[in-house]
Each structure stands twice: as C-alpha cells, then as structure tokens.
C-alpha cells in the first residue's frame, strides 16, 4: 500500500487572509487595528468553508484546495481590479465596469472549476509551492505593519518641531479661538467654474458679519497630512532648507498633527483645548481637554452588527463591490436591515459631521472658560452623505461635482448659523477661522481639471480689531496662528512668505485667481 505523503494544505487560508492584512497594512495609521479583527476571522472562516464545500464535491483535498485558492483570488481581487481599471478606456469603452469585469470573472470562475475537475495528475507538489507562495504573500503586509509600528514609535520619541521665538504672553482678556477646518472645501472661483455653484451670497453674508474672505486663498500643500502638519506647527515642511518639498516622513507628519505647536502654545496660555472626533486616528489630537464625539460613535466594537469602515473597504475591494453597486438588494425597504449593516460607516461618518455642526454653536454655553476649539470636519470632502437640504444619502451620486456642490450648499447654510451663534453668545469678540485644507477631492483626470487647482481653498477670517487691509489676498494657512499669536498674545513669530507646492515635491506654484 502506498504511503500517503500529502503535504499539509495551508494556502487557501493564507491567500484568504492576505487581502485583509494588506488593507490593514495600508491603513495602519488611519484606523484602529481592532477594526480588522472581524474581517480577519471572517476571511479565515470563508476560506475554510469554501475548501470544505469543494472537498465534498471533488473528494480530493489537493484539488479542493487549488480550486478554493483560485475562487478566493477571484473574489478578493474584483474590487481592486475595478478601481485600477475605472479610468482605463478604449474609446468610449471603460474597462473598469461591472458590464466588462463581471462576465470575465464569471468565465474565469467557470474555467477554474472545469479545469480543476479535469486534473488527473497528483498536485501534491503544487500544494507545497502554493503554501510557500502564500507564506511569502502574508509576510509582505506583516513587514509593512512592523515598519509602521517602529517608525511611528520613532517619530513619537523625537520632538520634531520647535520655534526659537519666545512663547506668547498670557493676557487678561483671552479671546476664544475657533479653527473650523472644512476638509476639501475649494475656492469660490473653482466652485463656480467646475461645479456651477455661486457661493458669493455666502461670502457676502460672512463679510457683512465682519469676516475677511481672501479671493485668492491658496493652501500651502495639496494634501491634508501636509497641510495640517504645516498649519498646526506654523512652519513649512522643508526642514528650513527652503526647498519646495516635504522632508518629513508620513509617521513624523502624523505625530506633528497629533502633538502640534499651536495646541502646545494655547495650553501654555491656559486655554481649554476642545476638539472633535474626525473618524481618523492620525487627525485626532490625543491630549485635548475635551474630545467631543457623538454618543454612538463607538460603532467599531466587535459585537456591533454594522460593518465598520475597514469592513466596508474590504467589501468594496472584493466581489462585494458588485453587490454594493448593484443596489437592487439594498434599496428595497423590506431589506432595510441589510442596508443599515452595509452603510454603517457612511452613517457613522454622517453622525460625526452633523454632531460637530450641531455642537459648535453650543460651546459658548457648555464650556465657558477661554478655549481653543479645533473642529476638523471631513466635509464637504467625500463621501457624499447629505444633499443641499441635509437629507441623508445612502450612496455616492454618479455626478460627483454636482454632489460636491450640494454638500457645500448644505455646509454654507450651517456655517452661517454657527458663526452667528458663536459671535452672538461670546462675552468678548471671538477669533474664528473657517478654512479648507486643500481644494476639492475629485477625479481631476476624469474631469480634465489640472491637479494644481487642488491648491485653491476657501478661507474666512474673523479677526476682531485687525485692519483687514494689511492682509494679503494670498494670505495662507501657514501664517494663521503666527498672525493670531503676534496680534492678540504679544507673540513675535512674524509672517512667512506665502508659498505652495503640489504633492510632496513640485516647483512653488501659484494658480490663477478669478475675480481679482
């Protein structure tokens, strides 16, 4: 009797958990790693269930494992391929479309089943090879995660930014300072030109209240990470070389946002620091006095039936994308529980945005002490969560420019009420900055819009006692707090030259400005 020397079958499990690990590795600093636990367990169980089901029919462990592996690769690669091909077209025919990819994947699946059934040879050696490839595959994201942990720790261990100027003084009257960061809010001329929305009534209302709204406002950087690290530390990210590039690593930038100079100075001045939950680890400050979040924001627990953002991303990058995009299952009211499960992250995001907009005008009453309020609202940045009237959206509408304009219209109506309430309820005139960190987050290639347009941002400054005539139309975020500390707190930082770059490295760029 021939001795059974069949190798241990591991590869379906390894190829099954790899998609979860790579998503975790790519977003390790964005989300809590615990968000991936359920996905990891589910993908392991899915691999096992597929393997055992196929084993029932094929009666051969090697062949069942081989077919399970192919089906798992097809399942988990669908959404990724869809994203990669979504802008690839031959003439009018877009490759990244369900009409094209769906049939191809179906044929590939059927072929895989047919070919596997027809295999007559012993595939033991193939199993050994696939086990080896699976181990190699899983090691990549694990190394990525390990590097993230080490580099984050290293960045945290070094005090990255410090300025040589003396600290500002504590004054008898300390105005409340509100920094309302509206993520991805583009400049008025961009909104008018590409989104067909005229926001001049909103700007006029702010001006009448006493705001200065520079027409040609430009971000210093086109990326949130760069912009916030620069603004909150009142410095360019060139390590004082004067070169037009970002010379800090992503880990250092995250740390510069979490533990920034502006917060440190306000804390030293005796201010109460108030922040809001943004939904992203790297954007949230860890040591503020009040970190406000909706009461139901702990949705990312293990036993919550709704999907968390990580799980939705996994679904979106797999064959689940086909289910998410073909809404016939999700739009029927009878199946609203499914819809609630699938759209959990969107709802959580909407709750966070609306909570911040609701709470901002109440802070004058709820926190009476001198305070620095930093509200980083990931809005009107996609995803699209409301229409212009504030009605909730369950999906991203097909026309992203129109949907963006709707979110801006809604935000504007809320901002007017917020600033009115803050100013009306303040004992002494407050300082308010409303500002985008970069321009619109849209598919610039698809709309044939130059990427440089992402530099144009909306800015509005409410600076009591300041002659706005001295401010340049190009006044940029890197100088926000230099101006505030110098003007209101006897600081001596001075203003930097307004400069902007695209991405991590580009020549200094100034985009044309309509209306000036």
């Amino acid at each position, binding site marked *: 009797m021939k001795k059974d020397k069949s190798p241990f079958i591991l590869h379906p499990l390894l190829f099954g958990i*790899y*998609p979860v690990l*790579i*998503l975790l*590795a*790519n*977003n390790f600093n*964005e*989300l809590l790693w615990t968000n991936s636990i359920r996905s990891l367990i589910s993908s392991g169980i899915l691999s096992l269930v597929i393997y055992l089901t196929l084993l029932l029919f094929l009666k051969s462990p090697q062949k069942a494992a081989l077919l399970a592996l192919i089906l798992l*690769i097809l399942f988990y*690669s669908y*959404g*990724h*391929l869809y*994203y*990669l091909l*979504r802008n690839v077209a031959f003439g009018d025919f877009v490759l990244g479309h369900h009409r094209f990819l769906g049939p191809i994947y179906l044929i590939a699946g059927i072929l895989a089943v047919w070919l596997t059934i027809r295999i007559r040879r012993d595939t033991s*050696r193939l199993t*050994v*090879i*696939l086990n*080896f*490839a*699976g181990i*190699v*595959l899983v090691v*990549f*994201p694990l190394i990525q995660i390990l590097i993230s942990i080490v580099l984050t720790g290293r960045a945290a261990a070094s005090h990255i930014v410090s300025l040589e100027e003396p600290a500002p003084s504590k004054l008898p009257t300390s105005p409340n300072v509100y920094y309302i960061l509206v993520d991805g809010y583009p400049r008025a001329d961009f909104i008018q030109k590409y989104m067909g929305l005229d926001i001049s009534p909103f700007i006029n209302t702010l001006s009448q209240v006493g705001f200065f709204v520079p027409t040609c406002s430009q971000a210093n950087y086109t990326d*949130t990470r760069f912009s916030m690290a620069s603004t909150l530390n009142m410095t360019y990210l060139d390590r004082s070389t004067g070169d037009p590039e970002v010379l800090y690593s992503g880990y250092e930038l995250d740390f510069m946002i979490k533990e920034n100079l502006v917060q440190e100075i306000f804390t030293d001045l005796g201010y109460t620091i108030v922040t809001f939950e943004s*939904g*992203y680890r790297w*954007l949230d400050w860890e040591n503020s006095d009040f970190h406000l979040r909706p009461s139901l924001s702990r949705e990312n627990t293990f036993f919550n039936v709704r999907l968390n*953002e*990580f799980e939705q*991303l996994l679904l*979106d*990058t797999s064959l689940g994308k086909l289910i998410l995009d073909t809404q016939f299952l999700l739009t029927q009211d009878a199946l609203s529980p499914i819809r609630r499960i699938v759209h959990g992250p969107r709802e959580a*995001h909407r709750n966070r945005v609306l909570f911040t907009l609701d709470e901002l005008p109440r802070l004058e009453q709820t926190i009476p002490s001198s305070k620095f309020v930093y509200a980083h609202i*990931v809005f009107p*940045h*996609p*995803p699209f969560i409301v229409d212009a009237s504030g009605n909730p959206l369950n999906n991203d509408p097909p026309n992203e420019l129109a949907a963006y304009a709707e979110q801006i219209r809604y935000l504007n109506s809320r901002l007017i009420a917020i600033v009115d309430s803050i100013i009306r309820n303040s004992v002494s005139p407050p300082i308010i900055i409303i500002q985008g960190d970069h321009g619109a987050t849209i598919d610039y290639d698809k709309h044939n819009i130059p990427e440089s347009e992402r530099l144009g941002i909306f800015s509005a400054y409410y600076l009591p006692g300041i002659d706005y005539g001295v401010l340049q139309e190009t006044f940029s975020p890197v100088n926000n707090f230099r101006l505030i500390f110098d003007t209101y707190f006897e600081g001596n930082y001075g203003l930097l030259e307004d400069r902007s770059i695209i991405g991590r490295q580009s020549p200094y760029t100034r985009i044309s400005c309509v209306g000036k």
Partner: protein
Amino acid sequence: MSQSWLDLVKTAGWIISYLGKNHAYLDPGSGSYFLQLLIASLMGGLFALGVFRKKVIAFFRRLISGQKDEEDSDS
C-alpha cells in the same frame, strides 16, 4: 540609477499609490495588492524551479542533445 529610471520608478510609485482612491482617507492599496501577488507568484515560481529542478534539467538536456523522451527519474 539614471534619471530616466528614477523617473520611471517615481511614476510607478505614484500610480501604485494613487490609483483606486475612493474612500475619505482610507487607501485600498490596489496597486500594492497586485504587486505583492505578482512577487509572491514569482517567488513561488522560483521555488517550483527548485522543486522540479531534476525535471527542468532533464528537459533542457533533452532539448540540447535532441534525444527523444526518456523515462523521467523524478517522476
């Protein structure tokens, strides 16, 4: 490395980083997903060369000498 190669690497890096970004601040990492699959496949291929080395060597020997198929010692 020449400038043109550097540019090529940078462009490839850019494509891998930016293609497929659809979530607010989450990165699907579709480029790295396929890149790592490809590398693992290549490593698997190299491993297979090791496993089937006798067959591979025998195949090339036959190819060079023009001999007819003979019984494979590795089977």
